[in-house]
């Protein structure tokens, strides 16, 4: 029943935004604008192009960082999953990185890489990379043994087996790692804009806060969350387009 679920989605959206509007009208704080005011500010910023420029600024380190993390992360993950040596040497690092609050490293990064694009890209990378590496490695390690054995039995070369069996078998988990990584990357990009140099959406947030233009600040926050959710949905659509309904499970199929 697509209609029912759509209705429920709209209903739950109406409840949440309604609560926001009411909370803004009470108001809970001088610094808490209403939903409608924030939307008005959002459209104003959209209309004068400020928001789009800001998005471009925010997305640059994000996209570069996620792309680097994806390429490097999948390659490292593959190496870790395939080689005992790599596993021993590198996986502890990524396990520690995943568990640790890397946000604390940001001040250091600024000292090393300065305040430009590099350190922002770096922040995105350290946030996004561990989960991509670990997911890829885990997926590769868990490639059903019977499939790789089958590949060997039918005389596949190592390259063949990696390209035609290991990678496709691991791809759902790799993609879920990419999705988690992108989401962590978004957190990193915003963190970088709030903690390193305010640019893009982070700049709108801090600047409008400093001049007490709270509707604009909330509009920027709203828009970046919306952007993240859209971004991830697009990623999910790509995944579905690539692998379609063909995946219903894994080794059990």
């Amino acid at each position, binding site marked *: 029943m697509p209609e029912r679920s759509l209705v429920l989605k709209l209903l739950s959206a109406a409840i949440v935004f309604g609560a926001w509007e009411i909370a803004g009208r009470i108001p809970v*704080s*001088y610094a808490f604008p209403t939903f409608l005011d924030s939307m008005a500010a959002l459209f104003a910023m959209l209309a004068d192009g400020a928001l789009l420029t800001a998005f471009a600024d925010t997305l640059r380190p994000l996209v570069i960082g996620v792309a680097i993390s994806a390429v490097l992360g999948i390659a490292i993950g593959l190496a870790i999953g395939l080689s005992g040596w790599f596993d021993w040497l590198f996986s502890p690092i990524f396990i520690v990185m995943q568990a640790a609050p890397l946000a604390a490293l940001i001040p250091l990064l*600024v000292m090393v890489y300065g*305040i430009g694009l590099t350190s922002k890209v770096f922040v995105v990378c350290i946030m996004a990379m561990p989960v991509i590496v670990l997911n890829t490695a885990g997926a590769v390690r868990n490639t059903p043994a019977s499939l790789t054995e089958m590949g060997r039995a039918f005389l596949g070369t190592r390259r063949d087996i990696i390209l035609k069996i290991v990678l496709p078998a691991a791809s759902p988990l790799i993609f879920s790692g990419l999705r988690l990584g992108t989401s962590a990357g978004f957190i990193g990009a915003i963190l970088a804009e709030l903690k390193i*140099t*305010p640019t893009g959406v982070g700049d709108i947030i801090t*600047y409008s*806060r400093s001049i*007490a233009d709270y509707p604009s600040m909330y509009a920027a926050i709203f828009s970046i969350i919306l952007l993240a959710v859209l971004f991830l949905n697009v990623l999910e659509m790509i995944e579905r387009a690539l692998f379609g309904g063909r995946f219903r499970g894994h080794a059990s199929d």
Partner: protein
Amino acid sequence: EKVRIALAETPSDELAAFFVALDRARKMGLDYEWTAFSDEELAIQAVLSGQMDIGFGTPYAVMQRSKAPIRIIFQISKLKFFPVTTKKYSRLEDLDGVPILLHSRGGGTDSIANVIEERVGIKFGKRSYVPGSANRVVALVAGQAEATIIDLANKNKLMREHGDKFNVLPMFDVEASDEALFANLNWIRENEEAVNILVEALLSVWRDMNEDPTIISRETDPNGPIGQLPKEILDNLDNFYREAVEGGLYDRDGGGRKAAMADMEWYSKAGQLEGDPATLDINDFWYFAPLDRAIEKLGK
């Protein structure tokens, strides 16, 4: 009831004098607690929404825009900032079109840059924002920037260590406030007693400090937030305050009307306040009673 104080940064050498004043205020019967926020805007917001009583910062834009009756009661420090550049430049005029690093959009260094542009008749290149003078120094030393504006302590440090590579450009004097204490007017009226004690303690410390900067290190409570700082920082306290006093960072009268007037002019020029400075009423921004009372009590 405890007075809740919103700091705009984590306790560090710059706040040592303030904490000495707080200790004196406690002896005079003030009960307080403090919270450190990661920046000035948060401290302002916290006071705005009533979660904190007294805040740190210069919330002129907020005072003019939001309907909340916020008032400044004491000037902590003046906007003593210094344009620092590589050896390539030696006068402000040379900076036409040069990219510059500043603290934050709409903040104090941003307004200094605005005023420089206006007075000298130049236009800076791209402005990039890096919060924290120390971080801007790092960027400068690392060669990531050619010009920036930094505070007194960092200027001195930079010149001590890398004086051969950088110039401090001569600049006009600024009397406007960098940090000030502010609070909600209604709250001030309900807590006159506490505010009076605090302002009096501050004024006394500011005066003593201008006489003898070492008083800060001597009076610092070894078990307080400043006393707990790493030894490396504590060892430098005397030096820090000596240079600060020499540089005229702390006004011995806590700013008052003189500072308020300077602020009106400065922040209007800097774009934070709207309207002609002459038409602005300083009483819409400052609340002088506690300071007046303290000056009267301690003498001129």
